């Protein structure tokens, strides 16, 4: 036991990867399952806000882009559930925890998408924030998660470009389109900053997660990075970020920004955001309405296996 623990510690210390068959502390395993499952749930629930606009996309090219993006998110969910399964979790159980509200997903998806500009702003800001969080996780100490994250980050950065390109195009369009973009930015900016989680002094698990190298930077570091990145991007786009306190601080070499309303994050996380109930209801309905389909597939596979076994044993057709 002490040997195993020592070997685990050494792996972490040398920046090597922990692999599924390696011994790991129970707390590490549980934390990783929770982290990966929440990420998987976020991908799946995250299909909804944008998915609602696929059938209404205003051009066929935009429709193709959005459909491909939402499909990628389903794919990300699949990889991530698979990564969680390497730790002994089960996809069906994790889905059960999601629809029973026992596991969380990113609170950003509890906000509504009110117009097509929201699709672009989600790509730019929400995917942008997600990438800030996720690129360092390509170096997560848990191997399967780190590898899944490489592919996911590739696709996410691609989605971000597409979102930004939509906004650029809209800003070159009509006055009404520019107003739609600004309105969407106004609604999504603060929730995007909240995606990095509570401030460091209120994030009790950060130290342990950093020690285990399953978290590489603190919430506040990543949030600052995101703000610094976004300011020139907003300027290039010609939109205003809705924060009167936002300004460059030459002394710090960073942008200062106004206080975040943490009570709002708390409210949304605890289930009282604008769309929490709807998001979970849609996922629950898909899962429950699909139960008979999954049962049929299992039953058919069993019958087919029975027939093969019967044939192999020279007993003819079987069942």
């Amino acid at each position, binding site marked *: 036991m002490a040997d195993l623990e020592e070997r685990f510690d050494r792996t972490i210390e040398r920046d090597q990867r922990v692999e599924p068959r390696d011994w790991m502390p129970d707390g590490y395993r549980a934390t990783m399952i929770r982290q990966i499952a929440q990420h998987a749930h976020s991908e799946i629930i995250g299909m909804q806000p944008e998915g609602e606009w696929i059938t209404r996309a205003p*051009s066929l*090219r935009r429709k*193709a882009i959005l459909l*491909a993006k939402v*499909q990628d998110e389903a*794919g990300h969910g699949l990889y991530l559930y698979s990564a969680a399964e390497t730790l002994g979790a089960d996809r069906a159980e994790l889905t059960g925890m999601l629809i029973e509200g026992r596991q969380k997903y990113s609170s950003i998806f509890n906000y509504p998408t009110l117009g097509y500009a929201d699709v672009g702003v989600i790509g730019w800001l929400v995917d942008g924030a997600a990438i800030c969080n996720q690129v360092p996780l390509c170096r997560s100490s848990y191997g399967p998660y780190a590898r899944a994250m490489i592919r996911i980050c590739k696709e996410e*950065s691609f989605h971000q470009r597409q979102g930004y390109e939509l906004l650029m195009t809209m800003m070159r369009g009509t006055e009404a389109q520019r107003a739609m973009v600004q309105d969407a930015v106004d609604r999504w900016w603060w929730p995007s900053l909240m995606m990095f989680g509570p401030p460091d002094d209120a994030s009790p698990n950060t130290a342990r997660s950093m020690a285990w190298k399953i978290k590489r930077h603190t919430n506040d570091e990543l949030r600052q990075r995101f703000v610094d990145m976004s300011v020139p991007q907003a300027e290039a786009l010609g939109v205003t970020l809705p924060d009167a306190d936002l300004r460059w601080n030459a002394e710090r070499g960073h942008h200062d920004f106004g206080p975040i309303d943490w009570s709002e994050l708390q409210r949304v996380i605890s289930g009282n955001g604008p769309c929490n109930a709807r998001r979970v209801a*849609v996922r629950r309905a898909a899962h429950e309405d699909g139960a008979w389909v999954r049962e049929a597939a299992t*039953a*058919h596979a069993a019958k087919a296996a029975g027939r093969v076994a019967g044939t192999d044993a020279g007993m003819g057709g079987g069942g």
Partner: protein
Amino acid sequence: MSSTEHTELPAYEAPDRNAHGRLDDTGDVYEMLDDAHEALAHAGNAYEALNDGDDPRWAYGTGFADPLAGVDTRVPDGVDGADLAAYCLMLGDDALIMSHRLQEWCTRAPELEEEVALANIALDLLGQARLLLARAGTADGSGRDEDALAFRRDAGEFRNVLLAEVPNGDFAEAMARLLVFATWRLALLERLTGSRDPVLAAVAVKGVKEVAYHRDYAAGWVVRLGDGTSYSRERAVAGLAAVWPLVTELFTPHEVELRLASAGAGADPSALREGFDDVLGQVLTAATLTRPTDTTFTQSSDTTLTRPTDTTFTLPRDTAPGRPAGRSGTHTAALTDLLAEMQSVARAHPDATW
């Protein structure tokens, strides 16, 4: 101690500006987006892997290029341009409207693998629709682009078969519909690979590979559901029954189809029935299901179908006997509803650019 250390984030570097303090163009901004993320991954080579090689991540048809760029779009000798345009609209509308019904499954599929597959099929059909609509706009000389044709026509101007437009039932009905649609369309596209219109031939060559997968995917599910549990079998029977009244229309030729077929550019759909029946026969046998009897609703006075979801829809009554309804512009109310949704944003902002 060493286990708690972490690398400092690199200092923020502002992107280069031009003399006016602005970023030069969109290209600079994209570099800025990437650079910003790259800086986060400064240690290790993870991010290098993110930027390898050229970019295959643009899903087909999501780039900026004219989909028919570099293709000779002159109408071949002996083919009437208006007929060719009408024909491309028929095949393009089939794909566009069927894709819409599949898009409606998004976030509602029974399993994540099905989310991915249904979106993939919807994306393939959308790609086919775009090429065909673009071709219609060049063939009739109107110069209307894919979006003008998709978003600025009313239901009566759409030429898709009714099978594509009826509302989604449950998953069993969706798979029965997809099996019928893909089997028919595959047979059609196989013939069109030899079309005298090079654009149609190219669309067909690409489409054959895609639709062969759509057919196999749907067939797999029809078999699983038919030969699964007693409940899934019940749903499969009901789904097939709901879809079957729409089969006859697929093989009833419109005069444009016949003219295009004799000009060597199109295919006579009535010639596709035998191959269709063979494939359906094999799949239904494997699924332990019985083929429903054909109904020719175009000549019937009783045109209300009861659907597994307990919604009913009325097939158009005013279609002349033996004439294909959808191809002639006669549709169910479901198409009007579908278009109201599909065209809502585009029509709300008629002067916008997207």
